[in-house]
């Protein structure tokens, strides 16, 4: 047995055991610690698979950021309210394990009978070494072939940031939105005014000679300013 296989079994065994710990631990903090352990071992397996960059990304993003955030939230949430694992729902647990076993059997069958293989790619270890290593190879591929997806991902992260902000401080975002809406909408004519068919007496009192009869004895209300007839500003209007 080659040394790589031994190392793999070691890493994979710890990873799986730790993953099981995530599910089995009573205390969510223990779950999180188990998850970290599992992730670190998976990262080591990535290194075995010549994916150094992903291994580091896994550690920085998953363990360094995501799980830390989970711990953060765990500590902010009231500890006493955390529900127990064995919450008196044995049926659900049994069904869950059964489904898991069934899926495991199916996937194992699929893996063992697998014969479909795509055409091998051009990034052989030599080709990767020729451009300077895994990280350079990924960079080349990422910023040429996958230019658009990476931009979309950037957008997704931005949206997630704004979404998180909205979940945390809705009032802040709504304030900003209202300002933006007021500043950036372009409104066309929005008719709101005085009905000329109304009797003159019911029209607003003449202010500074603003109400008068035009040719044809038609009531003509000179409303040069919004203030005269509308209590509320028109949609999107800024009063001076």
């Amino acid at each position: 047995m080659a040394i790589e296989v031994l190392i793999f079994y070691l890493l994979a065994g710890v990873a799986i055991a730790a993953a099981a710990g995530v599910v089995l631990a009573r205390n969510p903090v223990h779950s999180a610690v188990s998850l970290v352990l599992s992730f670190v071992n998976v990262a080591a397996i990535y290194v075995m698979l010549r994916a150094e960059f992903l291994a580091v990304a896994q550690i920085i993003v998953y363990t360094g950021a995501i799980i830390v955030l989970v711990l953060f939230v765990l500590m902010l949430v009231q500890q006493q309210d955390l529900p127990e694992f064995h919450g008196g729902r044995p049926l659900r647990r049994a069904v869950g394990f059964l489904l898991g076993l069934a899926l495991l059997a199916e996937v194992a069958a699929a893996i063992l009978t697998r014969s479909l293989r795509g055409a091998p790619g051009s990034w052989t270890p030599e080709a990767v070494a020729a451009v300077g290593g895994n990280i350079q190879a990924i960079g080349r591929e990422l910023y040429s072939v996958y230019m658009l997806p990476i931009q979309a991902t950037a957008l997704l992260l931005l949206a997630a940031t704004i979404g998180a902000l909205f979940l945390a401080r809705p009032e802040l975002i709504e304030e900003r939105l209202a300002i933006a809406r007021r500043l950036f909408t372009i409104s066309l004519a929005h008719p709101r005014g005085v009905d000329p068919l109304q009797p003159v007496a019911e029209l607003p009192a003449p202010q500074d000679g603003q109400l008068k009869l035009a040719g044809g004895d038609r009531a003509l209300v000179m409303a040069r300013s919004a203030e005269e007839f509308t209590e509320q500003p028109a949609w999107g209007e800024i009063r001076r």
Partner: protein
Amino acid sequence: MEWIADWLFIIPLAPLVAAAVNFLLGRWWIRDRAHWIAVPAVGISFLASIPAFLAVARQHGPLTQHLYTWIPAGDFQVPVTLYVDQLTAVMLLVVTGVSFLVHLYSVGYIDGDSGYHRFFAYLPLFVFSMVMLVLASNFLVLFVFWEAVGLCSYLLIGFWFRRRSAADAAKKAFIVNRIGDFGFGIGVMLLFVTLGTLNYAEVFERVETLSAGTVTAIALLLFTGAVGKSAQVPLFVWLPDAMEGPTPVSALIHAATMVTAGIFMVARTHPIFVASPTAMLVVAIVGAITAFIAATIAVTQYDIKRVVAYSTVSQLGYMAIALGAGAWIAAIFHLFTHAFFKALLFLGSGSVMHGLHDELDMRRMGGLKRYMPLTYWTFLIGAAANAGILPLAGFWSKDEIIVGAWVAGYPVIALIALAAAFFTSLYMFRAVFMTFHGEERFDRAHLHPHDPPWTMSVPLVVLAAGAALAGFVGVPPEQGWFHHLLEPVFEGTAHHEVSPVTTLAFGAISTVIALAGLYAAAAAYVLGAISPAAVAERLGPLYRLAYNKWYFDDIYQRLIVEPARGFATFLWRQIDVGIIDAAVNGAASLVVWTSQLWRRAQTGLVANYVLAIALGTVIIVGAYLVAGSNLFR
């Protein structure tokens, strides 16, 4: 000057940029500074038009600049190409020049309005649309900007949209225009169906291949559009109501942009009309009726802007007469001179309103000559030019139209036009006398009329000079510089020789008629020899007919608006509520009913949903394995 051929795009681009900037940034940044962008932009447009005009005038050939292909669909290519020949060049000067003055005037007039930036966004957009309409080399582009002009007029007439009357007037203008545009659109489609092209040059080349009936149909449909845009009978009703917009807008619509579009379009497509004498006759008749009816209405109105507005309708009727009579150059010549004095009259009445705090009724004016001398003199020049007093601009062009109708074999129309000329003179001087002469009938305790600030008076002076002198480019009649300039455009159309005797005779007749109108007005409103009220009493039904605008609005109300409303109500009550809504509600009820059955599956427990998903996964993967799909092998 030939370099301008590569820079033609500046002419429409400058106002477009101004409109876009004011539109996008106006609300929160530009605000009161909107004219800093709009006025220079239109100025640039005007300055760029001058070399274009000179280049065209010098080389006697059209300039073109291809910008891009708008619709490249197989054989159907719609290029956006700017096309400047003599006709377009004249129109460009008129449109951009008058627009520039109107912009300048607006700076003073609209000052302090809360929609300042909005106004200076719409105004350049209007100029852009009109310039593009004039520059189009293709019926589809023409149609697009034909509609854009309509949209801009809607926006500007309804500028004070909080006023119900303004909003209604805007809607009226838009809808009435749509009726004309509908015909115009069908005409364009018919052209495309029969000729397979929409480019001017190709259409005009192939128009002879069409049958007489088709040409007549196309020409009449196109003219329908002109009837709507250029406010001919029976679609003129929107134009007087368009007074609800700010006065500079009225000036713009009446003098430079909107209404001249119809006249321009007919002149531009003259090969089609030349091919159909029937259509020409219709055009002339519609023009004559319009000229006469509008003139009679104008005599009875008291609202100063309405008088001027009906005057526009009447003058547009004259232009249509010229078009129908085949006196193309005379029509454009009148359009050209009319732009000066009509803009002048509107801006003048605007400054009267400005001085009297938005007073419009001439019965409450009078004696303003003393308070606003500049306005008075400029307005007087404009009125005299409109009335056709020798030697001001209006005289030359109007006289030429009447002569043109006479020699084209339409003596009745020429006589109607002469009759209308009498009324023209009458209502114009009536307006002058009621406004500026006689006793002061306004509230002197509160109102202190005065001449407007310089941004408003400079355009008045410039336009007054134009109104006085613009006619001389067409002197002597039929042989003037203007005629030689435009001759290449209308080459190949039948030209009636006019003997000098006819010219002189008609010149004398119309001078006499104009002076008669002047005298009648003076007698009624200055000398007091005639009592207008007594005349109105004597004429009875005729007076009421004219005062109520020949009942056009009422007829429309009764015959079109009310039946349409009734039909719409029927559709709403019976069809919409009874059938469509009922069907929709029924479908919804059905869904509600079936949902009641299914809602039991919704436990609200996420765990159950997750369980279902997992179960589904297991089943699907199992199905793949059992079915021997090639997913895994």
